[in-house]
């Protein structure tokens, strides 16, 4: 099964479970969790079921397209269900079957792995899912997001697309993976991998990036003051990406590093709080609409 078919299969599977199929969010980010479809929507009482592919940028992992396992940008398939359904483990295992993985022919295990992202004020409990000893999925029950207790609890399922594909296609090198008939990961991503690595480690302009961080931060705050959460959060994401590039570049000294992370944490917490308040002002519309349906 090629990557395209895998994505289509997962989309079909989770769509059948009532998930909204979203497209990747169009601002650079380090992980699917940072998409507003996860970070913001996990906050508050409104139900939310969604699935999407998220290209995730990790500048520090850039290897000029030469490392068989590491990428500047890899893909995550992200599922969020709030509240977490009782049969979520079974739904997940069914998705593996849909991908052609017969559990009777493999060793599938749920191994404790708790997730914490202090810079976003996030914490969750769950597992990494092992397929014959390989970690293919992060499975997390969110307990806290942006410093706010999650009520109800969202479950987040994050498939590492390239990891899973390397298993399904039995390939040792990520660049040999078939994306779709006649196209490999190499064909599509090698050049951007090389160029982004070069940019990250050599040609990026730290002064400009430091400057941008400040500009983005200021704009995030200004929009928050206006109660405009989404524009504000876009700028938080931009801060985060710029920071990641600077960090990978080695341009951030140790003391500065702590300070920058602190600044982003403050922004994330403020956004989370503002989002909650804004949804509350709107009367948590998705929650109430669901209530109406029940009466029907």
């Amino acid at each position, binding site marked *: 099964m090629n990557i395209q078919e895998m994505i289509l299969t997962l989309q079909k599977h989770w769509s059948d479970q009532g998930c909204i199929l979203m497209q990747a969010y169009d601002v650079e980010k380090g992980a699917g969790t940072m998409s507003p479809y996860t970070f913001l929507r996990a906050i508050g009482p409104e139900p939310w079921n969604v699935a999407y592919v998220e290209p995730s940028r990790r500048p520090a992992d850039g290897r000029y397209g030469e490392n*068989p*396992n590491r990428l500047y940008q890899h893909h995550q398939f992200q599922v969020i269900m709030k*509240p*977490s*359904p*009782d049969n979520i*483990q079974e739904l997940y*295992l069914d998705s593996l079957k849909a991908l052609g993985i017969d*559990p*009777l*022919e*493999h*060793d*599938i*295990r*749920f*191994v*404790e792995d*708790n997730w914490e992202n202090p810079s976003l004020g996030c914490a969750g*409990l769950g*597992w990494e899912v092992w*397929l*014959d*000893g*390989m970690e293919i999925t992060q499975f997390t*029950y969110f*307990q806290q997001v942006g410093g706010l207790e*999650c*009520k*109800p*609890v969202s*479950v987040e399922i994050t498939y590492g697309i390239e990891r899973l594909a390397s*298993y399904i296609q*039995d390939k*040792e090198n990520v660049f040999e993976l078939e994306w779709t008939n006649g196209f490999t990961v190499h064909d599509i991503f090698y050049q951007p991998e090389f160029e982004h690595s070069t940019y990250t480690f050599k040609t990026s302009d730290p002064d400009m990036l430091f400057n941008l961080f400040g500009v983005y931060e200021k704009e995030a705050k200004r929009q928050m003051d206006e109660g405009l959460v989404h524009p504000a959060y876009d700028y938080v994401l931009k801060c985060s990406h710029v920071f990641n590039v600077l960090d990978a570049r*080695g341009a951030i*000294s*140790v*003391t500065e*590093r*702590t300070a920058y992370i602190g600044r982003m944490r403050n922004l994330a917490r403020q956004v989370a709080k503002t989002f909650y308040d804004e949804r509350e002002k709107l009367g948590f519309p998705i929650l109430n609409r669901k209530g109406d349906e029940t009466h029907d």
Partner: protein
Amino acid sequence: MIKQDILLEIGLEEMPARFVTQSMNQLGEKVRKFLTEQNIEHGDVQLYSTPRRLAVIVKDAAEAQADVNEEAKGPAKKIAQSEDGEWSKAAIGFAKGQGMSVDDIFFKEVNGVEYAHVNKFVKGRQTAELLPALKDVALSLTFGKNMRWGSSEIRYVRPIKWVIALFGKEVIPFEMAGVQSGNETKGHRFLGTTASVADASSYQETLKKQFVIASPDERRSMILEGLKTLEQENSWIIPVDESLLEEVNNLVEYPTALAGSFNEEFLALPEEVLITSMKEHQRYFPVKNAEGTLLPYFVTVRNGNNHAMVKVARGNEKVLRARLADADFFYKEDQKADIDDLLKKLEKIVYHEKIGTLSEKVARIRRIASALGVLTNASEDVKASTDRAAQICKFDLVTLMVYEFPELQGVMGEKYARQKGEKEEVAVAVNEHYKPRFAEDTVPSTETGALVSLADKLDTITACFAVGIIPTGSQDPYALRRQAAGVVQTMMEHEWNVPLADVIQVAVEEVLKDNIGGKEADTLHEELTAFFALRVKHILQEKGIRYDIIDAVLAKNSGTLKETDEAASVLMKHKEDAGFKETMEALSRVVNISKKAEGNRDVDPALFENEAEKQLYSAYAALESAWQQVDSMNARYELLARLKPMIEQYFENTMVMAEDEKVKQNRLAFMSRLAAYILEFADVPAVMVK
């Protein structure tokens, strides 16, 4: 009475392996306690657990609480009944209160006075009525980490999926976390199905048919059996690491051991790297040959049966291959790196926000180690190797390998240091300076290792104290207690003839030079002294030294840890001697009266008035010249013990607090001089004698 078994099974999403056994035991404890409190007689309590279930079976539980015949005591006879036998209001009230009538009252003497009594019969309640409270027992379990899920308010180790509660064949009805109790269990995730459990005695069998081995001991035996078969088939030795076995056992419901291989090339990697990759990251058992050499194989324990074993092995091989290829890349890259370049990178790593970078820490370790070398009179060679080892002791933290395998810090440092041409004792010290790594670990074996180890630990403790990170109760995130214990142990075992106070002094000076925290040197020194004293006390306790003796040796004046340790052992050794009590008493008298001295310590023998004084004084003079000649605390104890008859004579014949002020001051001066020696051995009055 009819007896029936109780079965309680809590079905969960996969629990963290580290919580399974302790949660099972906790459930057992709490069920036992519940039965005792409820007065329900029962037989054996059997415990079961897998990653997805905690279960307890109580054999032969009584169908009802035992009936109780209770004697209740009422008012005294003279209050209960008038002389003509009329019952008083008090008596009527008492009988009524007990659910009886005055006709049931009889009299019985208690402490010579007759009181009204009734025999009360309390019928035992039906066990079935009481058992729904098992829900609260199940919900009362505590775990290291709890979670919420869905819209539930309950916090538990993982979501609760099903509950079986049976008394005999009857379901004990209750609901917990939105789950209704019943008699349906779930089998293995992939090999089994849902199944009904008829009663407790068929619990294990029912699950076995569903590919779940509920008994952890039985699973363990299956794993060991599987390992043994592989050993025999292939002439392998598979060393069994207990903690790995325990973890693996709690990751599977139906274990099947299977072997895989990896490319022989990877055997060129250090053994520790291979073992860590297999054990820590993949939970595999490494495989050796009869000579103890690692072989290019591994064993994993699958959660399933022996179907499609080759496929599962291939998958695992692929994962390990990627890991080892990474490790191999790291190892090769690290070998190209230069120690000085790596040390430069430490400038970029913050050790702690308020304490500074690792590079700054290393500079302090160097200064402290060098000062310690002066205190211990280390040879020039040792001083040189200590300085180099201190300088490079953290370089491996920025190697790729240690970044990937943090548990190999020090281990890789030693290997790389040797490869990069460092002297043997320097390389060894880079690894040893982390010792003791855990409570039961040994101290560094070399002098260089000990110096660097102490410098590192003292720096950590002192810097943390300086910025207010001080362990309280269960809070000790930097494991400062363990590190301080390591310092004490190392000083004792290396027989350092250096007082702890001097060692603390060095650390305080060097840390404050870097402007860490805002404390005064004296304050910091005081806090550290108290902290270390507690560690010394703890270590002596662990050696079985009696409390009062610990207090006595800790309160003694000055001296080294070696002497403290020795003095404690000497007192423990002699405490059963004939005359020990009298010796302690005699020495204590000297110490106690010396406290009245007012500073004057000049003794004028011409002012002595009796023979006993003169005799004790000449014995004292002999002790004074012998004291520094002897080098063991035992010999010092003997010197002091020899004074006993003279001291006794002295106090029999001498009034220290004499009328004549001059005589008195002279005697007190003498006593305080003698006391000084006694207190150099131990605070003798603290020793308890019967």
